[in-house]
Structure formats: structure tokens, C-alpha cells
């Protein structure tokens, strides 16, 4: 055989050329022949390593290259390739070591600097990562290195710099799927979710197996409040990449938001099993445990996440402090935020929460610190920018500087409103349709088929109208369990075709089934108590439906002065999907529609089932109002209802700080002082609802 005459050098050259041309078999044969005569020959091992990598066998590739790296004359290139494969395997420390050896042996090897740059990025050594990658750009700019540098800038929170890098990458190669996907992530962070979706879709179109693009697309869909679409994209990814941890984590968080925490916890557990050393997986697991009420395990998960390397540490610490706050451990929460801010003074989540926990006085230096984060030239994400404006509004209002406070509130609300699609007139028409579809006789007739259980108690009304306070008072009663804000009823409603027009025509079986579906869901949450409170404020829309499907339920309407309620909404950046509170005129108009619908319910509902409580009255005479309320609910008096702020139960709502305090009377009428800043609201509240 002619090839028997080859020297080792010739055989290696031929092997390499075969592999370049994708001719795997002859390449492998030649390498094996070299290794048979010279075990450990590094060039042969290197080619076999590259081949194993190309065929998706990362472990074998690393094994070959580690052996090649044992050679005393190993070229820098082999170490650089080994470093990259180790990074892909998540073995960062060894990866960094190999990449550093590579650049030490040959400082002119551009690819080694690039690989070192992305390893340092993952290891969180961000400024060194930047200098490595900038070094590469200076010598040999490529789409890949711009993309890599963009990712480092994202991790540094330097979003505009990141955008410039992705733009450069895409200018060099417009059909670059990875850069388009990263751009999608960035655009979503910058508050441009529609553009983010388009960019991610383009990335998927170019490379349908690019997993990150699906995760980024899902995140952008969430920003557009399209959770079902977001879930769909994650499922679509998991269909071909069932072990993608990021997808399971994203799925877990969405499921939590749509009140399917059990399924979400399973997804989080899956993610954790796939990556037991991932800080992000532990943090996600913690969030889901928290949602399931498993608070001790949740705290432990956050602590574990904070101990692991990676960029999730700050978020884990913030989550932990937030949970402590929710559990009423205020001092520990404050300490948690302070420690976090000492370490990461740009952590906006910590600033926001901390602002909620303290009362500012004029000249507080923290106000200036927060304003600095918003200073021109600093690039922060859109969400952080929004959160800071709301935090500064709160701080400045505390400090008595209403003009500046409302300037911040105005900007924060404007930013938030620009991400939402909402038509207040359409909401008004929807409420009119509901009222028209459910006159007294329809409710009374359908109620005959409903489930007569007295277990459910609903608290409804505007957000920030005192619903949390009422729930806390009731949940302090030994016969009552407070289940928080449940989206159960909303889900049932969305499954009724043609609602509300069809509500009167539902068959007795349908009515009974709807009532039972609700009861089945809440009974699991009753903790053995006779009554369960569902304080989803937006259920004010469905009072009539409740009257039909659950005629034995009590509905408490929480009322509060309109201007105070709206002001409280306007100064709040809600976590959930609240769409009508970010524009003063819309808020006023919405309130008018709400008042009209409630007037309808008052007229058509049996008075013993529809109980109204005024927030101002509760503040003025807590005991008297509590007695009246318990009586209306048919519950015996219990002293614990007066000392509700001592009740040890987590509170999960925008109002959670107030309920821990004894009733304070500053809320009532507080809006009057700010009339000058509330013009469009006051005008809208005075106008008849269109």
C-alpha cells in the first residue's frame, strides 16, 4: 500500500486536509495509524478531538485534547481549543487556566484571546473579558468577536455599548443568528419587546435550532403580556431540546405567574436536576418554593444560589430579602438589602425594595445616589429605569418634594404605559356588556343551579382600595384562610365561549360545573378552614357570575375614596398585569366605568351576599367595622381580627408593607394635598363615563 510509505508528518497533513474537506473516515484512520506508532502524538489527538467535537461528543473531545495538552511542545492553538471545549462543558476554572497558558505561549494567537475573553465573561471577570475581546477586535475584527463583546457588556449592564457591538456584528454579517438572538435579548431589556420579538424570530428563521433565541423570544412575549405565546415558544424549544435548563426555568416562572405554581415547581426541579451547580436554577427553584408557600426551603434555595458562582448572586440575595419582607421579618430584610447595595450599588431591585421599607427625609443622600443611576450617559435597562423613577417618586414624596416626585412618577408611568396595549373605552364597553347580560332575574334564575357552598369569600374592588387590609383582618380569624389573589375565576370565565352575552343561556349543568370547578381549586388551599378568601380585586367584573355559580358565596366590595385609590395606583409599579393604572386620565375613566358596574351589582345582587365596606370607615372605627363585617359573614367575633398585623402569614401583594403596621390614618384624604399634580385624573373622575 502506497500510504504505508507515508512519514508521520505526511500522514498528519493528509489527515488534517481530509478533515478540512469533511472526509471523516480517512482522517480518522490516518490519525489512528499515527497514534499506533506514537501514542500521545499531540497533532493526531488534536484532529481526533476536533472531529469528536464536530460529531457532538464533547466528553471525548475534551479527553483527546487534555491528552494532547500533556505534550511538552503542545501548540498554543490546541490549548485554546481545549479551553473553549472546557467552557462548553462548564468547567470554567480549567478552561481559564488553559486559555491563559495558550496566550502565554503565543500572545499573537488571536483565537486564544477570544476564547479567554468568553471564559472570563462566564466567570464574571468582566472588565478583563472586555480587554481580551477588544484586543481581538483591534487585530482582527469579526462578527463573532463583536457578538462576544456585546454579551460581556450585557453582563456589565452596559446596554448601549452592547447594542453597538451587536450592531457591528450584524453589519459584518446580517444573517448572523446568534447576534440577532442576543440583540433580541437586549432590545427586550431596553423596553422594545416588539422589535425584540422580530429579531428573535429572524434568528430562529436562520437557525431553527438556536435554543437561546426561543428563550429570548419567550421573554419578549412576556414583556408584551403574551404569556401563552411565551409558553408556546418554550414548549417548541423543549420539543427538540428537552434538556434545555434555561427553557425549564423560564417555563417555571411563567407557570408561577399564571397560578400554576405546582407545574412550575416541577419545571424548576427539572432545571435543577439538569444543572445542580447552577445559581440561576437554585434561584428559580427558590421562587417556585416561595410561590408554593414552602418558605424555609425557599430561603435555603436563595442562600444556596447566592453561594454559587455566576451572575445570579445579586438576584438571589434580592429575592431572599423580598421573601423576608413578605414573611414580616422586616429588620432582616432591611439588612439584606443594605448588604446587597453595599456590594452592588447599581442593583435597582434592591433600591426599589429598600425605598419601600424606609421613610425618606429631605436631603437623604440615597435620593442622590438613585438619581445618579438615571444620569445621562449611564445605560440601564428599561425595566430598571422604570423602577428607579417609581422609587424616586416615593422617596421624594416622603421627603416632601411633590413637584420632583410627580415628575418621576410621570416618567415612570409613561415608560410603563408605552409597553402596554390598552383601550379604556373598550374596557368600559366590556363592563356595560357584562351588566346588560346579567340583570337580577337572570342571576336569580341561574343561581338555582349553582353550588350553594358557603366556603368562598370574595373581596373585590379597585386595586389599592383596601382589599389587602380586609383580607388580613379576615384571615386572622380562625375559621378563615386567606388564599391571596387567585386567577381561578378569570380562567373559568375565559373558558366560557361568548361570555358575557352567553351567561344567561348557560345550562344548569354548566353552571353547576363552573361552581364546582372553582370550589375544587380553592378547597385544596383551605388549610382545613371553613372559609377561603379570594381577594383578586378584578373579580369585581364577575360579581354576577359568582352570584350564579356560587350563590352561597359572600362578596365583599372594598370601597375607598376615588382620588386616594387612583393616586395610590398611580404611584405603584405593579408586578402583575395591571394595565389601566399608568395614565391619570385613563385611570380616572376606568374608575368611572368601575363605579357604574358596581352600582349595577348593588342593584341586582341579594344584599346579604354583597357586602360593602368603606376603607375610610375601617380606619376611623376598626372594631366597629370589623364587628359589622364578621356579622355579615356569619362569623363569631374573634379578638385576633383586631390585632391582624401580628398574624404570621406571608402577604403577597403590592400593599404588603401597610398591613404589617397598625392602621395609619395618613392614607385617607392624602390625595387632596397633591391636587395640583393630578389634573387629568380629577377631570376624568368628574366627567360622566362615556
Amino acid at each position, binding site marked *: 500500500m502506497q500510504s504505508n510509505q507515508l512519514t508521520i508528518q505526511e500522514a498528519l497533513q493528509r489527515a488534517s486536509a481530509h478533515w478540512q474537506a469533511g*472526509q471523516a473516515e480517512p482522517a480518522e484512520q490516518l490519525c489512528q495509524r499515527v497514534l499506533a506508532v506514537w501514542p500521545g502524538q499531540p497533532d493526531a489527538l488534536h484532529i481526533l478531538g476536533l472531529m469528536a467535537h464536530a460529531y457532538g461528543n464533547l466528553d471525548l473531545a475534551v479527553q483527546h485534547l487534555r491528552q494532547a495538552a500533556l505534550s511538552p511542545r503542545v501548540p498554543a492553538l490546541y490549548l485554546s481549543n481545549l479551553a473553549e471545549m472546557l467552557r462548553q462543558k462548564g468547567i470554567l476554572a480549567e478552561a481559564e487556566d488553559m486559555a491563559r497558558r495558550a496566550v502565554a505561549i503565543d500572545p499573537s494567537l488571536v483565537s486564544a484571546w477570544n476564547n479567554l475573553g468568553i471564559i472570563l465573561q462566564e466567570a464574571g471577570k468582566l472588565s478583563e473579558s472586555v480587554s481580551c475581546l477588544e484586543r481581538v477586535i483591534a487585530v482582527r475584527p469579526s462578527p463573532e468577536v463583536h457578538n462576544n463583546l456585546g454579551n460581556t457588556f450585557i453582563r456589565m449592564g452596559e446596554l448601549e455599548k452592547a447594542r453597538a457591538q451587536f450592531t457591528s456584528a450584524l453589519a459584518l454579517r446580517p444573517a448572523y443568528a446568534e447576534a440577532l438572538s442576543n440583540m433580541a435579548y437586549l432590545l427586550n431589556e431596553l423596553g422594545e419587546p416588539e422589535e425584540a420579538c422580530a429579531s428573535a424570530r429572524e434568528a430562529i428563521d436562520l437557525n431553527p435550532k438556536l435554543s437561546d433565541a426561543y428563550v429570548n423570544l419567550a421573554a419578549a412575549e412576556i414583556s408584551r403580556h403574551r404569556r401563552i405565546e411565551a409558553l408556546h415558544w418554550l414548549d417548541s424549544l423543549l420539543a427538540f*431540546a428537552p434538556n434545555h435548563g434555561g427553557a425549564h426555568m423560564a417555563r417555571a416562572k411563567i407557570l408561577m405567574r399564571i397560578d400554576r405554581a405546582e407545574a412550575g415547581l416541577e419545571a424548576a426541579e427539572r432545571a435543577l436536576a439538569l444543572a445542580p451547580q447552577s445559581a440561576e436554577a437554585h434561584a428559580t427553584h427558590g421562587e417556585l418554593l416561595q410561590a408554593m408557600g414552602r418558605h424555609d426551603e425557599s430561603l435555603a434555595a436563595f442562600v444556596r444560589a447566592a453561594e454559587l458562582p455566576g451572575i445570579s448572586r445579586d438576584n438571589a440575595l434580592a429575592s431572599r430579602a423580598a421573601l423576608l419582607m413578605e414573611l414580616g421579618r422586616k429588620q432582616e430584610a432591611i439588612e439584606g438589602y443594605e448588604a446587597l447595595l453595599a456590594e452592588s450599588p447599581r442593583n435597582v431591585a434592591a433600591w426599589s425594595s429598600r425605598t419601600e421599607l424606609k421613610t425618606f427625609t429631605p436631603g437623604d443622600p440615597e435620593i442622590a445616589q438613585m438619581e445618579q443611576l438615571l444620569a445621562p450617559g449611564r445605560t440601564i435597562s428599561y425595566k430598571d429605569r422604570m423602577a428607579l423613577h417609581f422609587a424616586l417618586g416615593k422617596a421624594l414624596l416622603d421627603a416632601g418634594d411633590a413637584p420632583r416626585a410627580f415628575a418621576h412618577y410621570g416618567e415612570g408611568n409613561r415608560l410603563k404605559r408605552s409597553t402596554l396595549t390598552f383601550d379604556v373605552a373598550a374596557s368600559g364597553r366590556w363592563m356595560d356588556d357584562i351588566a346588560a347580560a346579567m340583570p337580577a332575574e337572570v342571576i336569580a334564575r341561574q343561581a338555582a343551579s349553582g353550588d350553594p357552598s358557603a366556603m368562598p369569600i370574595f373581596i373585590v374592588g379597585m386595586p389599592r382600595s383596601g382589599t389587602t387590609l380586609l383580607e388580613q383582618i379576615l384571615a386572622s380569624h380562625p375559621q378563615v384562610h386567606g388564599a391571596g389573589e387567585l386567577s381561578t375565576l378569570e380562567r373559568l370565565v375565559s373558558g366560557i365561549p361568548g361570555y358575557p352575552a352567553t351567561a344567561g343561556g348557560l345550562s344548569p349543568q354548566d353552571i353547576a360545573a363552573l361552581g364546582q370547578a372553582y370550589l375544587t381549586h380553592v378547597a385544596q388551599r383551605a388549610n382545613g378552614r371553613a372559609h377561603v378568601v379570594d381577594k383578586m380585586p378584578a373579580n369585581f367584573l364577575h360579581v354576577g357570575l359568582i352570584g350564579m355559580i356560587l350563590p352561597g358565596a359572600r362578596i365583599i366590595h372594598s370601597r375607598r375614596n376615588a382620588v386616594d385609590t387612583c393616586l395610590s395606583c398611580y404611584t405603584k409599579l405593579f408586578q402583575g398585569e395591571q394595565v389601566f393604572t399608568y395614565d391619570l386620565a385613563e385611570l380616572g375613566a376606568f374608575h368611572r366605568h368601575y363605579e357604574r358596574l358596581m352600582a349595577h351589582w348593588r342593584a341586582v345582587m341579594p344584599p346579604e351576599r354583597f357586602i360593602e365596606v368603606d376603607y375610610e370607615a375601617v380606619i376611623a372605627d376598626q372594631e366597629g367595622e370589623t364587628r359589622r363585617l364578621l356579622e355579615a359573614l356569619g362569623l363569631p367575633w374573634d379578638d385576633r381580627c383586631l390585632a391582624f398585623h401580628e398574624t404570621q402569614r406571608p402577604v403577597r401583594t403590592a400593599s404588603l408593607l401597610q398591613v404589617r403596621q397598625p392602621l395609619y390614618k395618613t392614607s385617607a384624604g392624602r390625595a387632596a394635598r397633591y391636587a395640583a399634580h393630578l389634573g387629568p385624573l380629577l377631570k376624568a373622575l368628574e366627567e360622566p363615563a362615556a
Partner: protein
Amino acid sequence: MNAPMPAARLDQAVVDLMGQGSFAQAEQMIRAHMSAHGATIPLAKLLARAVRGQGRIAEAAELQGRVVELMPGDLPGRFDLAESLLLMGEFKRGWREYHWRYDMPHTARIARKVQRPRWDGAPIPGKTLLIHDEQGFGDTLQFMRLVRDAKARSGARVVLEIHSALLPLARRMEGPDEIVERGQLPPAFDVHCEMMSLPMVLGLKLTDLPGPVPYLRADPARVARWRTRLAHLPRPIVALVWAGTPTHTNDANRSIPLERFVPLGAAGASFIAVQKGPRAAEALTPPAGLRMEALDSEIADFEDTAAILEVADLLISVDSSPIHLAGALGRPGWVLLPFVPDWRWLLERDDTPWYPSVRLFRQPKVGDWESVFAALARELHNLRY
């Protein structure tokens, strides 16, 4: 069928029905299940297959398009869509989706992992472009024509890597600067392109076809030899091929029992069998009424087949490589096609933009070779030389 059927059993039942050619029944079964239990993506994919089997290609493409829209990472789904689009002549998106052919579970291992970038269609004068063939001989024979266009577009030095069986034909073709046998080490190159990706990269449109034809030529010495060898036969001389490679996924639909050819026996032509492979021996014991000369043992390679096609007056063939060879040589050929043919034959036409000298005889309904042979016999009878 009121009781709900578990998904796996439904799957199997539907696949079985389709395997027997009962596409309408399969469709009915899927639709009944869908209206009772809702549509799922796997069901939509099955439905697309059932609909496609009945020749409703546009409807199938629409279903496949929706699957791809919802599940962009379903690459087998994208390949299905590609085959439907190409069959409808929608080349632009069709060629794009066709490029996922090596990203399916059963093809990933055979993908050739060339370590240089794929050519993007841009001019690259001074560089070297490696074009390599990939699948069956028919594919290569059909798409070899594009090497010339790739050369013109790229301005590069073009190296063609091609199966040894087609080397001599390739050497007589315009386009490549250098030719290497598949598996042999090619010279160093800058970019590469799979032969069947050339349409995508070049943006091939229906109106670009056929390009210069013939683009292949037979070896004159062999032609002379075969002219002598076949001189004793009265004209017209008709070459026959009745079976494709048995390993082809669609072989059951394209290969035909030799008995079917008997109606052609009365047309007064001289039949020669250029069939190769396991079914070539059938020519030695042809069915009564079909006299033919068996050439298998004398055909060493495609050089012989090409020379025979130059000498013969007509090739009648199933959808296999000899029909592509005839078309590339510009020789008359009639191809027998199943009701839903391979995408390259398009729909509802009896000619093909790929080969001006080739006529298409399609099954009018699933499995109906009888009508095809009736038409063939009629046309053959009218053939004048």
C-alpha cells in the same frame, strides 16, 4: 368509532392505512379524532401526509407550513414542507427549507462536516470552491449542470468532487477546473457547497431551466462500439428500465413489475434492457409477449449506459438515474411516475423544465399503472422513425 383512541394506537392505524395506499381513509380517521379531541401538532403532520398522498399538495403544504410556523425547530417538518413546495414549483422557499435535509434524526450522522464555510453565492475570484456530490446518481446527474453556473457566478477555481462512477462523464462536462473522485483528498479550498445546495445558493428559479442542454456527452469510442453491437436490431430501439435502487425510501411506488410492460410488446419496437441491479436478471426471462435483449452483463458503467442511450431511439424508464442521464444527454426519454411523484417532476404537466427531451407519464390515481401503460402503448405505436 366513538370511543377515543389512544394517540399511539391512532398513529399506528393511520400509518398502516397510508402504507396500504388508503390515504382517504387515513385522512378520515385523523379528522374524526381531531374533531372529537382537538388538533395536535403530531396529528397535523400525519394529516399532511394523508392529504399529500391524495395529491392535494397545496393543502398539505399549508398544513406543513403551519407546523413549521408553530414549531420552527421541527426540522423533519421543514423537510416535509420543502418537498411539497418544490413539488409545487415554489423554488425560493423550497430550496431554503430543503437545506435542512441533513438535520433530521436519521440523516444527522451522514452529514458531511466540511470544516470550511459554505459558499454564499458571492463572487470570490482567486478563491477555490469545492463542490461535492451527495445523494443518488440521479440527483448528481440532474444537478451537475449547475457547476457551470457556480463557476460563472463565483469566478472561483472550481473543484468538483464526484462519485467514481460518474467521473468520466464529469470530465467531459463544462464547468469544473479540477475533478476528484469522492473520498480522495481534494486540493486545498476556501469554501464549499453540496451539489444539492447549489440551487439555494444560486437562487435557482424555474425560468432558469433547463440551461444549456445537453450538458453531458457520451464517450465517442463507446458510442461506436454500441452502434455496432446494436446494429442488428430494427428501429426503433427502445431501452427499458423498470426498477430503481431497492433501498430508496419510495421504491415501492416507483418500481414496476416487468409484466406490466407486456402491452408495449405489440408496438413493433426492439426492446433492450438497460436495467442494472438486483432486478436486471428478470430481462433474461421476460414475460410472454415482451421480447427484449438483456444487456446487463455487457454494461460496465454509466459510460456504457450513456453510449446505449445515444444509439437507442428512446428510453422508457421508471424514476431512476437512467432517465436523468438521457435528459442530460438530450436523448428522448419517457418517465413513468407514481400519482404523487418525487418533487423534481412537479405537478400536472407532461413535460419537464429540467429536460426538454423527456416526457412524463403520470399515474392518474394512486397505484394506477394500467392507465399509464395504455397511454405508453398508444404513444409508442404512433412513434415514427
